[in-house]
């Protein structure tokens, strides 16, 4: 073994020396032989001749000796690579086309893999036991509907910690925005609030200082300490003496006790947190009562199973704990709702990666689809390249037949052909990585919430994946053409001569059948992708054109973060009035209103309305309170359908009035017009009169039942509900994006103490909701277009090739009187035939797949015949366009030339 290895290595690395030795050795032999003959009396010339003759071909012996040395694999590989490279260089057009095709396919896959990997497969950095670590969910039935909670109150975490036995550790964690810094520099950034035990899930050491301990995370001692995130520490210049300094986090000032290691962001797929602070510290900053009650659900639970405990056991354990906790909470509420058994409370341990859990968002599903789409594109690309290689193999038949006739073994030739496709695939792979690098950045920005600085080139998992698919591509594209080349009958190929194929060789029929099948496959997949693109584009259009019940583009939302600044009621009222006035001063602001509910962001709810003669109104749904001044409806663009909106006369002390959303009015008074009717809200004493009905708005979800909203005049809100929060909407002339910053600067001047204001276009809250459809539309359209282009190229090359192959036949036809039109019709008909078959197969696949796509679409049937028809038409038009040029060439075949060529 060792001798073998030594020999091979020496052969490999000291090749020149070995070659020299071999040469010397053989020369020595010849000399001895010659001298023997000379000694026997043969003249020297004659002796040399005879020696050489007896010896045989020196070069062949050298070859055999090299083979015997066992390095031939490497040698022949380099030889093959050189040969393949020469061949590719000789046909740059072919090479560039093939490499680009593969680059797009491989690149799309590598880029998508990076995303899928991050969302679905890669465990959070530093996590010690990803398979045993779970997020904890609670399921229950409420108002006859199944619900799942992922967010819990501090008291619930304590119950789960106390009443489960299946886990080594149970910790709480929550990511939230908090103000970091002070004054004009203050910005909302992500912080992580975590149990002290949270760090125990990870194999991470702080790069500076320490993590906080259990003693610093108790209700009795909520220590004002923080561990900085590595990224944030870097962003402020990575000061080595940071430990011991203070940082303003939200309303609190905390002492920095350590810095987390690079890449440690905990269990989020969102942005890296600026700092980690103890759970107890966060709870204490809101008020000590939040240690006890179950109202404020804000943290998630992470738990690690003990060795040998199955997930099923852990689930049963969690269920018992959650039921006990549920009943404890219920007892405190005097049993106003069903107990745990009746509500079917369950607990479950789900994967730590959110996208893999049951509460994954639509993005995770779409991303899986898009990965599938990327694979399809790669398959189409492979089919295309295989087709081109097949065509090329045909033009190389004579060469291959010649080599076979000269005694090159088929195995050797196969190796050579595969080496060539491997070289092509490798070039495609490298170019694909470049595609993934540039395109991947865009993709990652689309899909990953996490800001992502990593590049493809230094991500070993993506590189490995790209390498694997490159190899697969080499085999997929190379094997069929190579095998087909070898199956040819040597004699026939040589005899059939320069005319490509003609009727020669049994392989040619099988080959054109294979090429046809590949083409059909491409066409069918293109149809599937284009149907997908059509469905998603249509969904996106539906989402975009959905009337939300308010205008998004021209509205800026501004909210004050008090950050612990205590204001009396009078001060706060005065501040809100000052903010309204200040906002109006900003150039371009048309109108300003207060607000208390913001779509897809936060809502004010005050319980169910009370209407004489109606009960159990709480069961109908959730009621969202919106506050506004006389400019509210002008500012948001919500239309008044009946009655009036809020007026300047709806003052404190006056008749309390409300405007209801149409859905709410209809739900409370299903049998008559709500105008003039009266109701109370929650436990307020005032009896409100309905003075207007506004169009429905969507603020909680884009799909599903209409939401209940009611609008309270600002001054009456202060009278009946309490102090009004410092939050407002401004409608601007133009795009809200351009006004967010000027508005913020102006409003900040009004802010007392360390409080600060933040402004955001309303679109920032709304458009993320449309994202999954815009991903779907973008990706399917891009990949579908790509697949169509590839299929068109494939069709073109196939038809062009077949025309070239049939030149003789066409010549005969023309000589016999076929008109140009007949020939064109015949050739185009061939292409269209492929397209029609592709459409049929693709449509079948799409119809079957429709079931699974349906839930991802918005108001769009997955089997919409219009879309199928459009796609079919597109494919047919493309097929005609791809064949028209070869058809034209066919029509102009000169019969005399074509016939003489034979």
């Amino acid at each position, binding site marked *: *073994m*060792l*001798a*073998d290895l030594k*020999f*091979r290595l020496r052969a490999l690395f000291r090749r020149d020396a070995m070659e020299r*030795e*071999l040469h*010397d*050795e*053989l020369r*020595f*032999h010849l000399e*001895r*032989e010659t001298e*023997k003959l000379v000694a026997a009396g043969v003249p020297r010339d004659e002796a040399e001749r005879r020696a050489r003759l*007896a*010896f*045989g*071909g020196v070069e*062949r*012996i050298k070859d*055999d*000796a090299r*083979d*015997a*040395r*066992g390095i031939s694999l490497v040698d022949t590989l380099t030889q093959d690579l050189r040969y393949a490279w020469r061949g590719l260089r000789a046909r740059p057009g072919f090479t560039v086309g093939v490499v680009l095709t593969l680059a797009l396919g491989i690149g799309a896959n590598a880029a998508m893999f990076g995303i899928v990997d991050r969302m679905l497969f890669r465990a959070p950095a530093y996590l010690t036991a990803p398979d045993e670590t779970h997020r904890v969910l609670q399921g229950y039935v409420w108002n006859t509907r199944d619900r799942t909670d992922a967010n819990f109150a501090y008291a619930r975490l304590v119950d789960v910690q106390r009443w489960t036995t299946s886990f080594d550790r149970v910790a709480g964690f929550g990511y939230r925005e908090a103000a970091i810094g002070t004054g004009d520099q203050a910005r909302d950034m992500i912080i992580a609030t975590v149990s002290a035990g949270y760090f125990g899930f990870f194999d991470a050491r702080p790069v500076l200082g320490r993590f906080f301990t259990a003693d610093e995370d108790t209700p009795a001692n909520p220590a004002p300490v923080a561990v900085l995130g590595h990224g944030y520490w870097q962003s402020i210049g990575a000061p080595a003496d940071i430990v011991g300094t203070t940082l303003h986090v939200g309303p609190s000032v905390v002492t920095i006790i350590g810095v987390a290691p690079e890449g440690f962001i905990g269990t989020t797929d969102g942005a890296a947190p600026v700092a980690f602070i103890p759970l107890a510290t966060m709870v204490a900053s809101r008020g000590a009562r939040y240690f006890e009650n179950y109202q404020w659900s804000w943290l998630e639970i992470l738990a690690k199973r003990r060795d040998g405990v199955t997930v099923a056991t852990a689930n049963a354990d969690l269920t018992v704990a959650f039921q006990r906790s549920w009943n404890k909470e219920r007892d405190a509420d005097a049993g106003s709702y069903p107990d745990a058994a009746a509500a079917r409370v369950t607990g479950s341990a789900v994967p730590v990666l959110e996208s893999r859990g049951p509460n994954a968002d639509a993005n995770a599903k779409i991303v899986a689809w898009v990965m599938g789409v990327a694979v399809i594109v790669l398959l189409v690309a492979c089919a295309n390249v295989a087709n081109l290689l097949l065509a090329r193999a045909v033009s190389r038949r004579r060469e291959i037949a010649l080599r076979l006739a000269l005694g090159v073994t088929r195995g050797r030739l196969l190796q050579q052909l595969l080496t060539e496709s491997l070289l092509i695939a490798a070039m495609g792979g490298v170019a694909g990585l470049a595609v993934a690098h540039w395109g991947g950045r865009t993709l990652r920005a689309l899909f990953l919430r996490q800001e992502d600085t990593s590049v493809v080139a230094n991500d070993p998992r993506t590189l490995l994946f790209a390498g694997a698919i490159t190899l697969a591509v080499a085999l997929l594209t190379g094997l069929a053409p190579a095998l087909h080349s070898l199956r040819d009958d040597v004699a026939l190929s040589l005899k059939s001569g320069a005319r490509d194929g003609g009727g020669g060789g049994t392989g040619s029929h099988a080959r054109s059948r294979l090429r046809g099948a590949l083409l059909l496959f491409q066409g069918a997949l293109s149809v599937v992708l284009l149907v997908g693109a059509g469905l998603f584009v249509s969904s996106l259009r539906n989402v975009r054109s959905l009337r939300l019940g308010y205008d998004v583009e021209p509205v800026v939302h501004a909210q004050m973060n008090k950050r612990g600044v205590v204001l009396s009621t009078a001060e706060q009222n005065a501040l809100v009035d000052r903010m309204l006035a200040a906002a109006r001063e900003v150039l371009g602001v048309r109108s300003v209103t207060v607000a208390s509910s913001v779509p897809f962001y936060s809502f004010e709810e005050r319980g169910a309305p009370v209407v004489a003669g109606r009960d159990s109104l709480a069961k109908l749904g959730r009621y969202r309170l919106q506050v506004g001044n006389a400019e509210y409806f002008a500012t948001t663009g919500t239309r008044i359908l009946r009655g009036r909106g809020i007026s300047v006369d709806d003052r404190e002390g006056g008749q309390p009035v409300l405007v209801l959303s149409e859905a709410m009015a209809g739900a409370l008074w299903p049998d008559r017009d709500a105008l003039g009717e009266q109701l109370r809200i929650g436990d307020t004493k005032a009896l409100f009169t309905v003075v207007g009905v506004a169009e429905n708005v969507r603020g909680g979800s884009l799909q599903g039942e209409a939401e209940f909203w009611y609008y309270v005049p600002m001054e009456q809100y202060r009278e009946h509900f309490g102090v009004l929060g410092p939050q407002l909407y401004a409608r601007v002339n133009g795009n809200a994006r351009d006004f967010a910053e000027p508005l913020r600067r102006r409003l900040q001047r009004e802010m007392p103490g360390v409080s600060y204001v933040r402004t955001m276009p309303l679109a920032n809250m709304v458009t993320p909701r449309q994202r999954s459809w815009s991903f779907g539309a973008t990706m399917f359209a891009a990949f579908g277009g790509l697949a169509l282009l590839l299929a068109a190229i494939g069709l073109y090359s196939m038809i062009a090739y077949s025309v070239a192959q049939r030149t003789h036949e066409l010549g005969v036809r023309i000589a016999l009187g076929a008109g140009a039109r007949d020939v064109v019709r015949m050739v185009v008909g061939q292409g269209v035939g492929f397209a029609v078959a592709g459409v049929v197969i693709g449509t079948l696949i799409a119809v079957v797949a429709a079931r699974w796509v349906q839930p991802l679409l918005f108001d769009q049937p997955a089997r919409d015949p219009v879309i199928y028809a459009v796609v079919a038409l597109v494919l047919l038009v493309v097929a005609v366009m791809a064949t028209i040029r070869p058809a034209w060439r066919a029509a102009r075949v000169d019969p005399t030339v074509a016939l003489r060529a034979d």
Partner: protein
Amino acid sequence: MPDRLDLPQGTLDLLILKALSLGPQHGWAVSERIAQVSGAALQIPQGSLYPALHRLERRGWIEAEWGGWGASDANRRAKYYELTRAGRKQLAEETRAWSQLTSAVSLVLEMT
């Protein structure tokens, strides 16, 4: 010159090993020695000799070393092959197998 015999498959390695068991030799001498001993009945096809030598070397049964050749010319160097321990074992093994084979074949052929 008597008729040359074709070498049965696989015997070339055995012959080379045997020739080398008498002491280190270069390739030419190996072929000469075999031809002499067999009374020129066995002529090693010269084209097969060197590939076989290299193959045996790769398997670790023989070792090669460059050495001076001839007293008169110090610059003439030849490649000398020498049996290794593994080669010696291999030779014993193959010799035994060969005698078994030939005696078995003889028995069959001498059937009356």
